[in-house]
């Protein structure tokens, strides 16, 4: 079919979904009847050819100019090619012991959402509940709801598919916790006034080196791993439960990593207000990157109220993180499949030829 005859739905299908670049963020779902998601897959049911392609515009895997989005989020703030724009990087954890015990690591994400809800910074949040055997997109409006979503699910929850529901239900200041693709989508959604994108008012990004295909769920079942309580990927895959722990080699699940994730240039959720990851060192703590003024303001206040605690990032560990992310970005820029990516030549050079020397 000739491209000019195609609607945006068809382009989304042909350029993103069919080749496997969809990360199931859920951004294109929910505002039109033609795109639906079940079982962590997204499908374009019918090429509507009518609207101005909101679905395509908000997709994190449609052509994406990171430098333009950065400009819009951070203005002229200084930008680190590896870590992105940031105001602070530190170790952090939830102030509450209870929260920490529920969180994946230090529980910072849960603590910050809880804090933002209590403070009225947001009136609702799109989060991911369920557990590692089934991720469930969840619209939360209370502290207890938020707590129910603690813990990482390593599959691809289409959480943003609930955004329109939140809008319909009247939420005005919506927070989002998401993977980097979802954070990119949030920034694109914020510009789409026809779907009330402006109602997204806080984005908390996760570090993410990739999410897993839904076939992973069958793998868990087949290998009786679904009876464990918690899953983590320190290096290999760790399943923890009352009856003891088990570790399976990462290689066993490599085949479940989404193609879209292999071409992701944004492991640290660079466009978020704050980004949260592991420390790769101490499972009781998180890495926290504070990026925007809004993020900074919230983190400062949360620290003041004791909702979170922070401590300095050990410089040697920061170098480890820098190197890992550098290599990741370099690999993605070299990968010819990363067609959606529009990175300025200078930035490309930094990774591909200068070898990290700006």
């Amino acid at each position: 079919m000739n491209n000019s005859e195609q609607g945006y739905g068809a382009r989304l299908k042909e350029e993103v979904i069919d080749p496997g670049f969809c990360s199931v963020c859920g951004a294109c779902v929910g505002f039109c009847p033609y795109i639906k998601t079940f079982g962590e897959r997204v499908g374009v049911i019918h090429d509507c050819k009518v609207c101005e392609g909101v679905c395509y515009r908000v997709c994190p895997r449609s052509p994406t100019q990171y430098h333009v989005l950065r400009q819009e989020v951070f203005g002229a703030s200084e930008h680190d090619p590896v870590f992105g724009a940031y105001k602070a990087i530190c170790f952090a954890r939830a102030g509450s012991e209870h929260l920490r015990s529920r969180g994946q690591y230090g529980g910072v994400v849960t603590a910050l959402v809880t804090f933002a809800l209590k403070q009225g910074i947001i009136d609702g949040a799109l989060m991911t509940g369920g557990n590692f055997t089934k991720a469930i997109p969840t619209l939360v409006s209370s502290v207890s709801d938020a707590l129910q979503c603690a813990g990482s699910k390593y599959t691809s929850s289409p959480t943003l598919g609930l955004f329109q529901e939140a809008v319909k239900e009247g939420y005005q200041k919506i927070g989002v916790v998401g993977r980097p693709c979802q954070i990119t989508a949030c920034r694109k959604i914020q510009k789409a006034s026809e779907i009330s994108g402006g109602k997204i008012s806080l984005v908390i990004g996760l570090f993410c080196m990739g999410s897993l295909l839904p076939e992973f769920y069958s793998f868990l079942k087949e290998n009786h791993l679904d009876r464990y309580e918690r899953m983590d990927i320190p290096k290999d895959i760790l399943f923890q439960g009352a009856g003891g722990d088990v570790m399976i080699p990462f290689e066993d699940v490599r085949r479940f990593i989404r193609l879209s994730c292999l071409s992701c240039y944004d492991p640290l959720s660079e466009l978020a207000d704050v980004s949260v990851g592991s420390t790769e060192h101490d499972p009781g703590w998180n890495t926290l990157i504070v990026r925007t003024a809004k993020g900074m303001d919230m983190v400062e206040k949360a620290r003041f109220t004791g909702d979170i605690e922070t401590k300095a990032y050990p410089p040697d560990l920061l170098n480890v993180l820098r190197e890992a992310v550098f290599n990741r970005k370099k690999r993605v820029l070299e990968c010819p499949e990363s067609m959606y990516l529009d990175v300025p030549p200078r930035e490309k050079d930094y990774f591909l030829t200068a070898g990290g020397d700006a």
Partner: protein
Amino acid sequence: MHKMGWQDVIEGRPGDRVLLNGNEAIARGALEAGVRYASSYPGSPSSEIVQTLSKVPDSELYAEWSVNEIVSLEGATAASFAGLRAICVMKADGLNVALDFLTSMNLGGCKGGLVVTVADDPQGHSSVKEYDSRYLAKAAMVPVLEPSTVEEARAMAIAAFNFSEQIKGPVILRSVTRISHSRGLVELGKSVREDKTASLPAGDRFLTKTIFHMKARDRLIKAAGIFEDCGFNYSEGPDKADTAVFCSGTSLLYAREAIETLGLNDEIKLVKVGTTFPLPEKFILSHLRGLKNAIFAEEVRSFIEEGIVLLYARNNLGKICFYGKLSGDVAGVRGPACGEMNVDIMIKALAKVYGIHYEAPGYTPEKTAELSALVPPREYAMCPGCPHRASFWAVKTAIAVDGRNSIVAGDIGCYCLGAWDTGFNLFDTLHCMGAGPGIASGLSKLGRFGLKRPTVTIVGDSTFYHAVIPGLINGQYSGSDYLCVVLDNSVTAMTGHQPHPGSGISVYGRPVNAIKIEDIVRGLGIPCKIVDPYDNFLAAETICAMVREPGIKVLIFRRECALVAARKQRRKRRVYVDQSLCRGDACGCGRFCVSVWGCPGNIWDHKTGKANIDEAVCAGCGVCASLCPAGAIVVEEVE
């Protein structure tokens, strides 16, 4: 008060002149002939025959909606074996299903009058094909009678029983849609046979053996003899003429009108052949002799034409020119032997033979083309609230989300519409009843040769009992991998809501134990889920999950046919569009409810530029409300 046709059929007295449709006339004929056993698998345009006969008390007449045509014919034949008169009714396609038995039984023959009524559907008004069943009758060596009018349908039905008993074999009464579904005045006769004793004495055996082939042949020879002076073959117009139109069935009327229109009454002889197989050769030869032109008028293909041309070849008759479907001279817009006959086709053919320039009154072809362009294209449509629409949307949604471009093997029922626009062009294959699971099973074996697309088949509930079960067993046994979606609307909807084994209602409308689809499926060891397609999200989600499961699996979409539900006059739900919530053309849905969803209950208000509901039409299912992206459609329970 005005009586329904079936009341006239059953209660009408001899000498009454009543308006009946062709099917009712056949039913009346059968009753007058003393029929005691009537069975059928419903199929348009034949369904009203047994529907009507089922109103007779079952002490007088046993009626049955069978699960398919072959068991139906076997049952009716059993009654014939016991000396009773029996009728078995089917549509043309059904004769294929019954054929295995028919070709066997017809060797040994039967006893009580056995009439197989087959209703063809030229133009396929309510069928996927316009089968000419006479060719099957010929293959099965069974005589064929073809009525030209509703009145004659009654008379032929009675005669067919007599012929059958005379030759000791079955007789086919071939109707077509224009007989079965048009109305005509019929003068009722009196019952000719009161006997209703079934007896099958020891030693009366009915067997099939190759050598009985000769019996079947001899029976045809006997039938031909009987047909020569049976009164159903006659001529009209001048005794001596250069040109004759040989016609059968409804084409008699078209030919008659064409001759009158062209003012050729004095020049053309009309030869009506009512017994089209075997042909009454003496009768036809008497009319062929001395002819210069022979024209043929029949529905659908060139059956009598072939027979008569062959007769000509075997006799020394001088030069006659033949004009028909074989020669290509009798042809409508679809060309010869395709599509339904009509008066225009016959006028055109006669005008051609006579070199007459004839212009049809009315618009010129150019004007017709111009006006046709103004008429919006009209697709087949499903009823408002039809659960199939919801089911199709769920399947379409699930296939899109699943992302592997599943192949959809369709099947036969109202849901044939799944092949076209109104069913979102979902089907990739569509053939006969039961074909879906067979094709799905075959496709699912081709993974080893590189076929990567998964397979889904969609079948109906009545079809399930008719022809799907063997396919499922075959699939399960052979290790197939496909999802079979059963659209269970609790009745045989397409043909007029006859009950089936799952309905829990007998042919007489009395409650019986329902044979549940899920029980059968699970009995085969096949996993089975049941979902209401109106719960469209769950429906699509369930398909998405099930297509990924290995092996063969069945998903039943259960929701009563919207027409049946409406007739029960349940409390209807009111559905309306909240005008403040509908975003009109600004929505970005592209008028989903009217342009894609396509339920007749969803309409567009061009004045306000917003969606609306035609409350007179809306069935209150509320599925559109669950799909509207703006949440603008509201469903309200009404007391």
